[in-house]
């Protein structure tokens, strides 16, 4: 067995790779390095769009993610809310996924400064989880208070002042969709943008961003904030650093490790192959 094969066999131990990953993520979390990041044109465009919204904008925010995705999406939604709140918005929160109510309560404790400035029923409301997926999305566009008779907390929506300004799709200036799945973006494109031309803003998990790029490129969404990196950039832009920015060092170290694994794995593969040895199976 050549030296290359021996090293390859040692590095191929799965548990060793896992421990290396844990160490590389832990180090920057325990001792932040503050490596700088740049702000991309994509995030600047979204920032500019929200900055140029009229005063008292009517916004629908779709909370469509699970607890796992909160690390990527919560900072982005929190940063956007902090930016929006200066314009005295009317915000209708809704969830077409069952984990939405949990995530909304977490969002409230993530950005308590935002919700302290808003009055429930007048400035914001949370409709809770609605079943039916695209069907619920279409029903919301026709008239929210006619469809959702009671909000997430059991309060009647009929007399809530917010619905005087923001009830049907045509009333809204922007729909922000924070999602860990591709389907909800398609529902809003089909049921809100296509018939009513309501502007959509996508806040997406990094992994699903490539599949929804065509919608953004075709102008069916005004822009996209992608993953933890997009959230970190938005936090920088509004001048309020949060958990996304704090995680960038750990992201860098982990990515560096994965890149090193890919390069090393291929280097050893080709060395061993050129030495005309079989790759040991694991």
């Amino acid at each position, binding site marked *: 067995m050549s030296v290359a094969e021996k090293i390859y066999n040692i590095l191929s131990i799965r548990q060793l790779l896992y421990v290396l990953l844990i160490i590389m993520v832990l180090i920057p979390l325990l001792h932040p390095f503050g490596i700088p990041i740049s702000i991309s044109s994509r995030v600047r465009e979204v920032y500019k769009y929200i900055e140029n919204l009229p005063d008292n904008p009517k916004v629908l925010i779709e909370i469509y993610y*699970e607890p796992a995705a909160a690390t990527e999406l919560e900072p982005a939604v929190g940063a956007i809310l902090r930016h929006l709140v200066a314009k005295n918005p009317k915000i209708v929160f809704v969830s077409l996924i069952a984990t939405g109510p949990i995530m909304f309560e977490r969002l409230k404790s993530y950005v308590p400064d935002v919700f302290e400035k808003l009055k429930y029923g007048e400035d914001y409301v949370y409709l809770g989880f609605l079943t039916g997926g695209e069907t619920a999305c279409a029903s919301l566009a026709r008239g929210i208070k006619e469809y959702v008779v009671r909000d997430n907390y059991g309060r009647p929506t009929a007399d809530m002042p917010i619905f005087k300004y923001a009830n049907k799709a045509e009333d809204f200036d922007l729909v922000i969709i924070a999602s860990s799945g591709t389907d909800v973006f398609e529902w809003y494109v089909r049921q809100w943008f296509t018939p009513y031309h309501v502007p959509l803003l996508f806040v997406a998990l990094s992994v699903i961003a490539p599949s929804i790029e065509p919608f953004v490129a075709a102008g069916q969404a005004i822009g996209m904030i992608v993953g933890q990196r997009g959230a970190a950039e938005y936090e920088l832009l509004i001048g309020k650093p949060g958990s996304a920015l704090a995680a960038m060092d750990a992201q860098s170290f982990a990515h560096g490790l994965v890149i090193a694994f890919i390069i090393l794995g291929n280097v050893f593969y080709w060395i061993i192959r050129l030495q005309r040895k079989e790759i040991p199976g694991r």
Partner: protein
Amino acid sequence: MSVVARRYGPQAVILLMMLFLLVTYFFVMPEEVMGFEANVIKWGSIAAGFAMMVGAIDILRYHIAFLVRRTPGQWLYSLVLIVALLLTAATGTIGVVTGVGTTYEPFAWLYNNIYVPADATIYSILVFYIASASFRAFRVRNAPALLLLIVGLIVMLGNTSLGYVIWPGFTPLSVWLNKNIVAAAFRPIIIGAGLGIIITGLRTILGRELYRRE
């Protein structure tokens, strides 16, 4: 009669729904008809809620079978599952019936301390497999794989501050790639999906999609 009820009846329901909702979208209709259309859409969403309850009951039945049969190596775990399910459903139902909904404290305790950490952990466990696959499985053996690797490296470096330190151009290059080339690459999939949706709809209307055999 039984074939009519078992097969043609459900097909008639779906055909009626589809024809009604397609006609009201593509043709101008009186206000009363459009009002009824809005109600039909709401009804579809409400009825879908029952499917979630059926899913939970199916899981319960499946694991009750293990418990009853005392399947070795499984029945104790099924007992844990059944107790957890019944406790969560019971506290949740109390919350719904008393009007506080999902904010009922015992229910909230269960989902905040069991569901949330477990859900987050199960999704994140894949990071270990990505790390080990990066070393053990990602092999560049031909030109398309090399292109995949190069683009992957550019986007990974563009995503992180590490890339900015090495070369600030990684971020704008990554944005250019994503906004243009990746969008173009996934566009045929979106167009194909659109064609698939239309074809599925037509096949359903024509009765070719469901119940070929009884």
